[in-house]
């Protein structure tokens, strides 16, 4: 009798302790595009917690990429980092350098490395791996594409189903699309390539399209002083100076889609993250095409990855892995693409019925996926925030007409080189 009592007692203790021991899994996420991205993430966290009552996923919205970066590093330094965090892919070297993240490989089986990691598009893994180890799992990934106003094409006597494929074609088309009013004010520019804040991203598309590279895979050397890069910047600057098909000066990112909707520009380069925004707000017929290149197609990838915090218990690591695997499954991935326009990073997602159904009514996300074949990594080096700032500053100086393109790039390269020397 006594034994049974003890057994029952200990059993209840075990059961209650089991039910109490739900793991709290905190993760930080930034929002870099419009629309209801934050609500979708919170819904994911809720759904996952419903499916897995022993894990309590707490999604913490942390502002922009920069804010999230600051919050994560501050938390890491004070020992309170979340188990995982979605952060911009290119800052990978800094997180490793600061010893805040660990490689996913350390908690994955060989089978998972082959089949799960292997299932992501290689273009998206480029900014997530260092020395063959995976630190970033692609999640909210994007790439720039060319958006064009089909109505404006028709008005200018151009074929709306035949967007420009090369830089020269793009320039020709842009000239035809540039319209001046009687005051000499340009009422519609041919093209808009935004240059405020982070001009390096779209600039690297032109460099890739010119057959160049911007940096090495180890993040210890840049090639922004190469002839391909200098020619790319000269062509970009010419658009708003000698050719007059783009508004002069630095152009905002945020107001670029607005300028497109208002008919201020007939074509724009911007991220696929804007697809849903343009779909909901463009009052005219529009299309999406590959970024036209000087010699070939080319574009950088961009966006955020899941990082695994170094300051985690084994239990948290397993729970995190399970959650991240779940969120990258086709069902969740399609919902994410629908809500934002981000490019689903796994081939299997694109083969799912839900995605095929979605593409039938809205085919443009597939353009971004097809462009991945020509895509290169985003600019990423050690001391990333500093180097990228120097790079941006040089590009801004050239676009704003303070320096000529060649001087701007040579100076930026020399300054970055001084910093990266220590890491070689």
């Amino acid at each position, binding site marked *: 009798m006594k034994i049974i009592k003890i057994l029952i007692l200990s059993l209840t203790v075990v059961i209650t302790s089991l039910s109490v021991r739900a793991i709290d899994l905190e993760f930080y996420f930034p929002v870099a595009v419009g629309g209801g991205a934050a609500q979708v993430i919170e819904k994911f966290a809720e759904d996952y917690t419903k499916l897995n009552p022993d894990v309590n996923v707490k999604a913490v919205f942390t502002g922009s990429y920069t804010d999230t970066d600051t919050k994560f590093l501050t938390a890491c330094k004070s020992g309170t980092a979340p188990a995982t965090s979605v952060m911009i892919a290119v800052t990978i070297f800094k997180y490793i350098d600061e*010893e805040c993240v660990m490689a996913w490989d350390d908690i994955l089986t060989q089978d998972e490395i082959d089949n799960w990691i292997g299932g992501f598009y290689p273009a998206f893994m480029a900014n997530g791996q260092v020395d063959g180890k995976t630190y970033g799992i692609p999640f909210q990934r994007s790439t720039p594409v060319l958006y064009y106003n089909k109505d404006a094409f028709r008005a200018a006597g151009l074929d709306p189903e035949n967007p420009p494929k090369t830089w020269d074609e793009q320039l020709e088309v842009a000239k035809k699309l540039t319209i001046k009013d009687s005051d000499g004010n340009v009422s519609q520019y041919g093209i808009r390539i935004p240059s405020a804040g982070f001009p390096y991203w779209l600039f690297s598309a032109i460099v890739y399209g010119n057959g160049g590279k911007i940096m090495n895979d180890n993040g210890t050397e840049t090639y922004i002083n190469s002839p391909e890069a200098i020619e790319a910047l000269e062509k970009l600057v010419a658009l708003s100076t000698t050719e007059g098909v783009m508004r002069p*000066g630095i152009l905002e990112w945020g107001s670029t889609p607005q300028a497109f909707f208002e008919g201020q520009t007939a074509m724009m380069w911007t991220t696929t993250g804007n697809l849903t925004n343009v779909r909901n707000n463009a009052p005219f017929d529009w299309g999406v095409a590959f970024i036209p290149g000087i010699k070939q197609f080319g574009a950088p990838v961009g966006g955020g990855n899941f990082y695994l915090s170094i300051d985690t218990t084994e239990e948290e690591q397993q729970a995190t892995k399970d959650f991240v695997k779940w969120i990258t499954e086709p069902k969740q991935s399609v919902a994410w693409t629908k809500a934002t326009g981000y490019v689903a990073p796994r081939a299997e997602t694109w083969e799912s019925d839900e995605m095929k159904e979605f593409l039938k009514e809205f085919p443009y996300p597939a353009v971004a996926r097809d462009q991945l074949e020509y895509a290169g990594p985003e600019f990423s080096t050690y001391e990333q925030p500093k180097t990228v700032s120097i790079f941006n500053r040089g590009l801004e100086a050239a676009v704003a007409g*303070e320096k000529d393109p060649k001087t701007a790039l040579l100076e930026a390269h020399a300054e970055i080189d001084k910093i990266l020397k220590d890491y070689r």
Partner: protein
Amino acid sequence: MITKIKKHIPVILLLSPGFILLLTFVHIPVVKTIYMSFFSTPKGRKPSKFKGIENYEHMFSDPIFWKVMSNNIVYAISTIPSSIIIAIIMAQWVNSKLPGRPLLRFAYFLPVVLPLIAVGNIWLFFFLPGFGLIDQVGSLFGFQNTNILGNPDQVLWGIIVVSIWKESGFYMIFFLAALQGIPREMKEAAIIEGANSWQMFYKITLPMITPTLLFVSVNAVITAFTRIEHLFTMTGGGPNYNSALLLYYIYENGFEFWDTAYAITLSVLLIIILSIIGIGQIFLLDRKVHYQ
């Protein structure tokens, strides 16, 4: 002896809460900041090392530092006097008997209640090239389109206008209070003596509001060096640091580049500048201030 101490106990007790708070959150951090400016940034496993005045040498040879410094001086020189003058004019205006005076006061004060981030966003829309408010109004009169925030020569002036627009209303409230504190008899006496309105302003109003003027100008200097929120929404310090101010550069180095040692060094300079100007203003102007 004991009675002497006893006499001081209430004084010490009354002063101590404020003193302890200031010591913990202002004075100790300031001293620690100065101390840490002689060390390098700790990184991963590398702890910080003593570097002597190397951080300061780096600062003085950094061309961007000189750029943000000269930006900040231009910014201060342009925003402080003009916002104070506009504030005095507005205060005089809303102090006189006008129909709809409360509405006018509210209109002038409205920018003050808006957060600077929101102000930045509103002005971002005004400045939009092509279809922003300024260009839409300008095009009615046949002006060329502008791109003020995208032009390295104009961007700082865009920021300056926003700052004046935002701060004038705030200073106006202080001047309004000061104007209402001027005794009516003085004005009446002046009118009887046949003083014209300029003489009234110069001989009566201005001397009577000098305490407020001192207070406002100290505040304005601090504001010119410490309010930078609009930079984040409007320009990000760009293009090419043409609109970056000293505090923005401190933030960028500290929390974007994580070069904390350099950010600390820049902060020390900011502390020195503000102390010198603040103390200097109080000592220099104090003699001319007319307290009742």
